[in-house]
């Protein structure tokens, strides 16, 4: 038996013995995934059990190095673990911005001491993180952010406001972009700092969206304190880390466009009706859906191609810049078509008959996909300038 097959056999046996039955059903949405933290939301006691057991093996973050609480698995082993988890429909034991965003940034840019201090609590689900990026006057133009950090010797005093801070009301710590210097160009003088949210100088206010309640918050800093040892990278060089994380975030959001499992066209044929040959009876709707499904399919192959090219050592080509733009626009198209197909049912807002307004809320929420993490227009600017080499205005 090869080493990998040995690993598979052991993993399978361990999962069988340790994954609670209640965690062997696919998550219905983000809310079914455990997020950890000092004030965790626990829907089912097994969530914590499952997370603790996996964390003990480092499998909440399978590919992180062992010394930082990870599993130290290589890519093949991590793939086997994912396959074996999928085999029994095991849920991910833990998901958080610490795992998906801060962790990769710390592994890349953090000092040894910072990694040792912050990564293991992320892996164990003890500390939940949020991201302090956008501000009321720094959205698409993120680099013009104005939250000030004043040097006080061993710490910074932070004053200003962040907005669209997802789960700030539930997070324990924040990774935050602040301005430590405003004398140079706007991209210089930005620093990347970490600090505890549980202090008098931090106030959090949830934001209600057109789709209803949301994870987003406004976050206010009034003489909040950040220790200098929690400055990541050099002072004034935080933009590099910010860009790295934005790329990461854009890849995550672009994935939204491919979440649909069911063919919209087939569903439409049932709801709207089909002619004798099985064609969707409304020709206009049929064409719109066919165009969407064609683009969705081809976008899927494009993501696969870029992945394969990267694996073959041909590098992440310029095509990756289209992911965020195209994926989110596709998701908006899908939601609009879904509304058109479902009709009255999709216009409900509340109550069991409308499944709590899930369809209309999803539709409304999708409008934000092409705004958050860099608008469609900003993505097009980036492609025009960096890929096509067109000059600035």
């Amino acid at each position, binding site marked *: 038996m090869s080493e990998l097959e040995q690993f598979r056999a052991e993993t399978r046996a361990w999962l069988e013995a340790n994954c609670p039955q209640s965690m062997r059903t696919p998550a219905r949405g983000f809310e079914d995934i455990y997020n950890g933290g000092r004030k965790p939301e626990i829907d089912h006691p097994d969530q914590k059990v499952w997370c603790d057991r996996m964390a003990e093996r480092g499998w909440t973050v399978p590919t992180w190095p062992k010394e930082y609480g990870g599993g130290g698995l290589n890519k093949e082993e991590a793939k086997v673990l994912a396959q074996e988890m999928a085999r029994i429909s095991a849920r991910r034991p833990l998901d958080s911005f610490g795992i998906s965003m801060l962790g990769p940034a710390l592994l890349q840019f953090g000092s040894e001491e910072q990694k040792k201090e912050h990564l293991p609590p992320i892996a164990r689900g003890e500390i939940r993180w949020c991201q302090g990026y956008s501000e009321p006057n720094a959205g698409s133009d993120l680099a013009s952010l104005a939250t000030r950090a004043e040097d006080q010797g061993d710490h910074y005093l932070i004053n200003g406001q962040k907005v669209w801070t997802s789960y700030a009301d539930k997070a324990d710590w924040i990774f935050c972009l602040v301005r430590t210097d405003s004398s140079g160009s706007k991209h210089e003088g930005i620093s990347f700092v970490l600090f505890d949210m549980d202090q008098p100088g931090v106030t959090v206010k949830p934001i209600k969206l057109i789709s209803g309640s949301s994870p987003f918050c406004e976050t206010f800093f009034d003489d909040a304190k950040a220790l200098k040892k929690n400055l990541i990278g050099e002072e004034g060089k935080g933009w590099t880390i910010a860009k790295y994380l934005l790329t990461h975030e854009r890849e995550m959001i672009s994935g939204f466009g491919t979440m649909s499992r069911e063919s919209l066209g087939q569903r439409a*044929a049932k709801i709207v009706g089909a002619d004798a040959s099985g064609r969707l009876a409304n020709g206009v709707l049929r064409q719109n859906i066919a165009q969407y499904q*064609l683009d969705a399919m*081809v976008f899927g*192959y494009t993501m696969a191609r870029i992945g394969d090219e990267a694996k073959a050592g041909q590098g992440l080509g310029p095509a990756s810049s289209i992911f965020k*733009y195209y994926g989110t626009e596709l998701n908006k198209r899908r939601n609009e078509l879904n509304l058109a197909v479902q009709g009255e049912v999709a216009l409900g807002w509340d109550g069991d008959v409308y499944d709590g307004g899930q369809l209309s809320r999803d539709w409304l929420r999708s409008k934000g996909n092409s705004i958050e993490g860099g608008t469609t227009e900003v993505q097009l600017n980036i*492609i025009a300038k960096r890929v096509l080499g067109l000059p600035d205005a």
Partner: protein
Amino acid sequence: MALVLNEEQIMLKDSAAGFLAEKAAVPQLRALRDSGSETTFDAAVWREMVEMGWASIAIPEAFGGLGYGYTGLGLVLEQVGRHLSNSPLESAVLVSATLINELGSEAQKQQWLPAIAAGETQFSLALQEGAHHNPQQLATTARREGEGYVLNGSKVLVLDAPSAQQFLVVAMLEGSEGPSVFAVPADAAGLTVESRAMVDSRAAGALMLDNVSVGADALVGEAGAAGPALERTLDIANIGLAAELLGLSVEAFERTVAYLQERKQFGRIIGSFQGLQHRAAELFAELELARSIVLKALQAIDEGADNLPLLASAAKAKLCEVAQRASNEAVQMHGGIGMTDECEIGFFIKRARVAQHTFGDYNYHLDRFAQLGGF
């Protein structure tokens, strides 16, 4: 299969690009057009293509080919699209050799495929009858007479008809439910070949079959049984045309971006205007999508994938859409100069529309894509 090119494929692509840029690019196309010649490709250049093995790429080794597959042929066709290089590579190799290979008897394959691979016999498919591609509705008939058959009907858009020596005529044989294919020599009695000049400066032809008698051996494969082979051939042909349209669209786009980087108006490089930048960026994204579906569909041919019909219609529909947009934007963004014959960009929009139409346009293939998708 991973959606990447291997080293051998990259070499083939690069050598095709170099050859075509020198020997069969837009200036040569313009010269051929202006010469008024009935043959709209350079026979000497075609001979060189054959010597380089391009006609044998996708023909199995057992029949004198290289057995290298359609992905390789598609890469050459993409370069053909970039340079608008005209030759019988599509009519004789992509379409006719494929149909013979898919449909012919062992003896027919032994007889014809090596001749195509060696560039000795030029075949062309005679399928379309009306204004649109509609392979389900055929009016051309065949009836048995003596040992052989007699054909009657008419065909249009027979590619490279003036130079073809053999036509693969699709007809309904009396007593059969499905279509049959007959190999008809260009000099057969009762056959009239009318050369028609098309907007892309290539020659197509109309065929009139007036009691054309052929022998028993002219029937390709079995009587009334050409349907599946014809469908597969058309899927392959459409994927090949999609590869050509990809090269054409990328070239038109790159020329347009280069123009945006140099043309000045209002004291500024026009490429600095956001109204043009965003249109160019959107088109770039569409071209990246187009590249993915073309590669996926080419690989599906070589892998014998079950969903080839869906992928073929996806590839052709997507490339029709993208080529139309890329060629229209190319003319618009070139402005007045783009409307002149002197500017080469006009050749791209002209070739795009003929390639789009051939074997089914956007409307045909999006409809088929939906139907195969179950709605």
